[in-house]
């Protein structure tokens, strides 16, 4: 009995390894996807290593490395900000905030979205109807307005932004997952599993969940880009924590300084380009994954 279980597990894992290898083989065919992955790797690595590369001293406004608003030079590749800190260092530190918020908000939204989506797809009747109505209600809730309202109530902090994004962005995932759940549950093997005595829990976790995971993965990569963008927008509107340097708050600080009309391009452009790059990278990855999972898209 014990060996049989082990063997079954081994088999499963072997199958999964094969699937991943095939997935990677297909993914590699997509050049844009590889480019996106490379850019992401660079950003994630620098975000992880920044405390050792740059050090926290770089963020001090009372002991800055340079004079305020110096243009780019050999010492400061991207110039300095209004306090005299290196803009490059600010962007490196800012990547931590942007990526953290991006992933955290996406995690909330994916978790909630998948749960509600699977439940709404699996059960029928009043529960499904109720969940769908709730989803519809959240679907039309504007993120920015909610973020502003939450910031007023909870105070300006990163967690407020994460909650605001997470709470407003799950309905798309839920809708998507529900559709996929319906498609999966219509297949004959689900009926067989039920006939063999599989309960709701078994069907949902063993059969539906693994089959909706690919779609969830693709949705995640696409959603992170949106979340990073929303974080930047909210920080840009001055609703973030000004003492934490994120990309959005750097752009806001640059604008407050009058960077646009004073020609301080090195202060306002780099954080914008960083946001665009990361959003682009996530989008490229997401589309590449989509292409792998959906053969109809591959030949386009």
């Amino acid at each position, binding site marked *: 009995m014990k060996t049989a279980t082990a063997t079954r597990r081994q088999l499963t894992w072997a199958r999964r390894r094969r699937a991943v290898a095939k997935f990677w083989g297909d993914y590699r065919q997509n050049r844009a996807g590889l480019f996106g992955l490379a850019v992401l790797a660079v950003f994630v690595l620098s975000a992880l290593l920044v405390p050792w590369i740059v050090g926290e001293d770089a963020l001090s406004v009372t002991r800055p490395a340079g004079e305020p608003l110096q243009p780019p030079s050999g010492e400061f590749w991207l110039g300095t900000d*209004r306090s005299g800190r290196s803009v490059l260092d600010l962007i490196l530190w800012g990547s931590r905030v942007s990526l953290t918020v991006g992933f955290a908000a996406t995690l909330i939204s994916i978790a909630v979205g998948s749960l509600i989506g699977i439940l709404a797809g699996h059960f029928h009747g009043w529960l499904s109807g109720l969940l769908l109505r709730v989803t519809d209600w959240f679907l039309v809730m504007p993120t920015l307005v909610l973020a502003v309202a939450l910031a007023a109530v909870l105070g300006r902090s990163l967690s407020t932004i994460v909650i605001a994004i997470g709470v407003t962005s799950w309905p798309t995932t839920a809708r998507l997952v529900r559709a996929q759940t319906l498609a999966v549950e219509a297949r004959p093997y689900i009926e067989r599993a039920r006939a063999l005595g599989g309960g709701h829990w078994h069907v949902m976790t063993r059969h539906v969940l693994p089959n909706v995971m690919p779609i969830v993965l693709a949705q995640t990569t*696409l959603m992170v880009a949106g979340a990073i963008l929303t974080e930047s927008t909210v920080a840009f509107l001055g609703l973030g924590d000004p003492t934490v340097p994120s990309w959005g708050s750097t752009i806001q600080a640059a604008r407050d300084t009058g960077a646009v*009309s*004073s020609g301080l391009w090195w202060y306002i452009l780099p954080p914008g380009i960083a946001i*665009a790059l990361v959003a682009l990278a996530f989008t490229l990855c997401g589309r590449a994954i989509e292409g792998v999972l959906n053969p109809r898209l591959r030949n386009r």
Partner: protein
Amino acid sequence: MFHTNHRGRGLRTMLAGLLITLLACATTLFAGTGAHAETKDEKTLTIAVSQEVDSLSPFLAVRRLTTALGRLSYDFLTNYDPKTGKTIPALAESWTTSPDGLTWTYKIRDTKWTDGTPITAEDARWTFDTMMKDEAAATANGNFVENFESVSAPDPRTLEVKLKAPQATMLALDVPILPKHKWEKAGDFAKFNNDKEFPIVGSGPWVISAYEVNQSITLTPNKDFWRGAPKFDKLVFRYIDDSDAQVEALKAGEVDFVSGLTPAQAKALDSAKDITVNKAKGKRFQAITLNPGARLQDGTTFGDGNKALQDPVVREALVRTIDREAIYKTAYGGFGEANGGYIPSRYKDYHWQPEGDAVIGFDTAKAGQMLDAAGYAKGSDGIRAKGGLKLSFRFNVHADNPQYIQAAEMMREWAKEAGIELKVEPVSEVGALLDAGTYDILTTGWSVNPDPDYILGINRCSGLPAKAGGPYLSDAYYCNPEYDKLYAAQLAELDPPKRAEIVKQMQEKLYEDNIFVVWGYADQLEAFRSDVIASMTPQPDPGGNYDSQDGYWSWWSAKPVGDEDKAAADSGGTSSGLVLGGGAVVLAALAAGFVLLRRRGGSAADDRE
């Protein structure tokens, strides 16, 4: 299986990513597209403003823009000489006071309202009397008449004011005198905004002739103004919300005057062609207030301010962690003066500043020692505490003031060195926190008039709210009986040097108590097109500001460029050959412009080195 629209969304997200920076630039570019509707002969002076109108009724208007409009369109009894700052005649030609200082008699100038009706003492009497009797009419300037016993107009040229106690501000009554014949039928002054009938009948150098909400306010000259008519044919206050957009509009010639520049903008405009940057000594102070325990007049305490701030040692230690010099060097780009005195240094007669041992200067080590001695020991997190009172303070900063935020960030780091935690929390407005007493530290800033009575008066014990949530003028919950005694003494002192001496003692008290902590005075940064405005009078003259003056000097005195050589310009240029020559001229101009731009770029780079 996959919704196609969600792929589209991915693409949109990506594009939006690129757009977020461009958005910042775009607002700037779109703002300057309004046409410059102006005939050649009509000289218009356009001023960019971002503040909204609260009311055009001088009884209600308290904002900078609208009080300035009141200045321009209604004459006051007296005015301030821009050169000396001393009181000079305006609507009152001369004045006398009784030996006991309780009766003031003003001789009213023989001049006319803009609708041709003569101005009489009755108009002035009605204005003050209404403010005394109608609470709504006292909204903006009620403090001036609080101490009035009665006002009368024995004849059309004589105004007589009787006081309850001597009052030093009788020659600084900054109250627009209103035309009784227009206003007595206005009805409820709380609701009357004076914005239905144009042009608005007034007596100042300019007449408000049109007002489009959040678009523009247009003024035309009062040709019969007794001090002389303004030189421009039109004065327009144009709404441009965004500071960058205002600067772009100035560069493009869409507006002729911009105020409230950031240090970076002022530096960049310094090298721009046809634009003059004015760095005026500030009439505002920037400060923080430390919550000493919010309370009502009857002593009832309320709110949840950190009780540690009620300890003078903690307050002094906290003040010692503030490097005022660094704040003005970095956050204000060097355009400002670090100074702990309450009344800005531009008012030489009243300004006081600590000297020698009295200075509570920047010294984080000393702050630490003081706190050690007082028993505030550092905890494991590096924050000091004593008896459960943690030196961790909420620091509420005006979110719309970038300099405050930058200074707050700096103060947070300094305080940390001394074991004090400041939690910087930007807020869109502090009023609610203040009324509830739910703050520890707030940023603040006040404009100071040439006469310091008002700004000193806000910190009296009698200024504390009478009931919970009641109106509170100041923002410090300061109350010191000695200070109040000095306030009464200065108000009753009619000898200016002696009064100044008392005013200085009051500032010393404020400074020692470390509740109202002034950082200093930021310069007022303004810029105007020197190819439109040839000259205008600053206040104080020289070295002062043009915008929000205590008087109408700048816009009244502004001279258009080209008035002198108008005749020469009219005789030049005929139309023959103009079309042929046009192309060549355009090319030459382009080439010249290109060369000029390159040279300007070069010189700008040199400046920065």
